[in-house]
């Protein structure tokens, strides 16, 4: 095909554009020089520095606390919401209500929650970031579990009820196991979103409890250092593993 040149060249340019910055960061993280831009040989020093950096370690711990807590809240509430919407609502009103947090700009949520906390006189801390992250994660869990529910056969639940299982038992033994892949996918997504989230955390965290993205933000604002390159490489590596893992997982769950 003659015209395929016109799409082949932009195609490759896109991937160069997407990966050039990443490759540069990874290469420079092994550079044995405090001058960022001149290659002076291979070293792992910056990684050592990274794991001794108190600010980064503290940020990492904060981020993991926030991600775990907000994922727990969002997974439980989002799953319940999805099941409730599927079972008890007809129109799209409750569904729209539950999915709004995912549509609103993060900036609005950030300043909104900041305003509420300050109006009530609550001081900010890690818990305010955790609660805020759960607020938008619920929407994502609800959406994913709802998608899963749409494929389920309601007759299984009815059969369970007809065979004498109570509503609680039916929910725990019939509904939940069938929903498990959706719930796991929702939890994974909300964990990932929380780990990466900057804007809402920026407004709702106390200066003494920065999450990792806030720590990175202050480092980047301060200037470029080889240590950030090492941190970036570690985070890139974790993301690659997570994305490939999720890919595997969806294949496994699709096969089920």
């Amino acid at each position, binding site marked *: 095909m003659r015209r395929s040149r016109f799409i082949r060249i932009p195609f490759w340019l896109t991937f160069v554009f*997407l990966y050039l910055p990443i490759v540069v960061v990874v290469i420079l993280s092994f550079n044995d020089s405090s001058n960022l831009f001149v290659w002076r040989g291979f070293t792992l020093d910056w990684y050592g520095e990274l794991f001794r950096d108190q600010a980064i370690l503290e940020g990492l711990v904060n981020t993991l606390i926030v991600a775990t807590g907000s994922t727990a809240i969002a997974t439980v509430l*989002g799953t319940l919401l999805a099941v409730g919407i599927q079972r008890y609502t007809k129109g799209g009103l409750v569904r729209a209500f539950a999915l709004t947090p995912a549509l609103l700009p993060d900036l*609005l949520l950030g300043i909104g929650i900041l305003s509420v906390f300050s109006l009530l006189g609550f001081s900010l801390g890690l818990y305010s970031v955790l609660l805020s992250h*759960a*607020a938008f994660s619920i929407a994502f869990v609800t959406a994913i579990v709802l998608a899963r529910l749409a494929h389920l056969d*309601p007759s299984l639940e009815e059969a369970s009820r007809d065979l004498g299982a109570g509503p609680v038992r039916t929910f725990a033994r019939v509904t939940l196991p069938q929903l498990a892949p959706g719930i796991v996918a929702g939890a994974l997504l909300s964990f990932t979103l929380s780990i990466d989230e900057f804007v809402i955390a920026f407004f709702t965290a106390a200066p003494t409890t920065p999450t990792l993205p806030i720590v990175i933000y202050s480092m*980047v604002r301060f200037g470029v250092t080889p240590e950030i390159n090492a941190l970036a490489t570690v985070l890139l590596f974790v993301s690659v593993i997570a994305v490939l893992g999720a890919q595997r997982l969806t294949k496994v769950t699709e096969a089920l």
Partner: protein
Amino acid sequence: MTAPPTAAPDTRPPVPSVARPHAVRRRPRGRLAALPFLGPGSLYIALLVFVPVLLITAYSFFERGRFGGVVFTFTLENFARLFDPLYLGVVANSLGIAAVVTALALLIGYPTALMITRLSPKWRTIALIAVLLPFWTNFLIRTYAWILLLNNAGWINQALQALGITQEPISMLYTPQAVVVGLLYMYLPLMILPLYSSLSSQDAQLGEAATNLGASPFRVFRTITVPLSIPGILTGCVFVFVPAMSNFVIPELIGGGKTVLIGNLIRDQFLKARDWPFGAALALVLTISLLLLLLLQARLSKRLTDGKREKAGAAKGVVTDA
């Protein structure tokens, strides 16, 4: 799946299928039964999303206090101030930059998405993961990478000088162009994915039929491929434009704070100028405009897909008849 043990032969009368609606009708018995499911999540979203949004809405109609904070006196002043040339300039700037970013994303995203649809299934998956992968890495890290690249001593300038294209380093960082590049890098995957899903769902037979009937590849592209992918184009454009409008981190880090966009203005009202009511009014207007855009796109896409499906069906009918 654990099958229930079938012990004794079922002596109950078989449940006729007419009884099904009965089982369904059993549900609405409880508004109360719905409460444990819908209650906690709705309450949570109400308290942590709707109350904050309402408070921002309320603040936008109040006056700022002399030392920051909010004085509860009704005013429309905050909205009137939006028409101050200074702030109109910021709005125009944001619209312009977001529009350029969207156009560039479409320009390089469209051929890329088209190319992906033509790959073998295995390579298609790999290419899609490769498009998504940068999107799933921390966005501050991705922004940082561009600070590194665009730096005066960075590799782009080193390469330009080594090739003898320039003598002096070109200052690229801290310019509006750098902000465009940063935003484009951030949101390009959001353009490629909807385009891909729209292009890959096209009926390949239409293009083949047109080619058999003597249409040039460009004509097929212009009269079949592009018109059928308009819903994907719309979705992609909105997905890029909307977040590009409210981003304040990239203008600050890559633009060096010299390019002030709406997001920066809002952030500054809350954290620096301490003029919360004005910041609230800005955020409210921005959010409403962006939501309207999303709504418009959903409507248009739906109408277009419905219309296109009929037309495509008709066209296919013609082709198979011939």
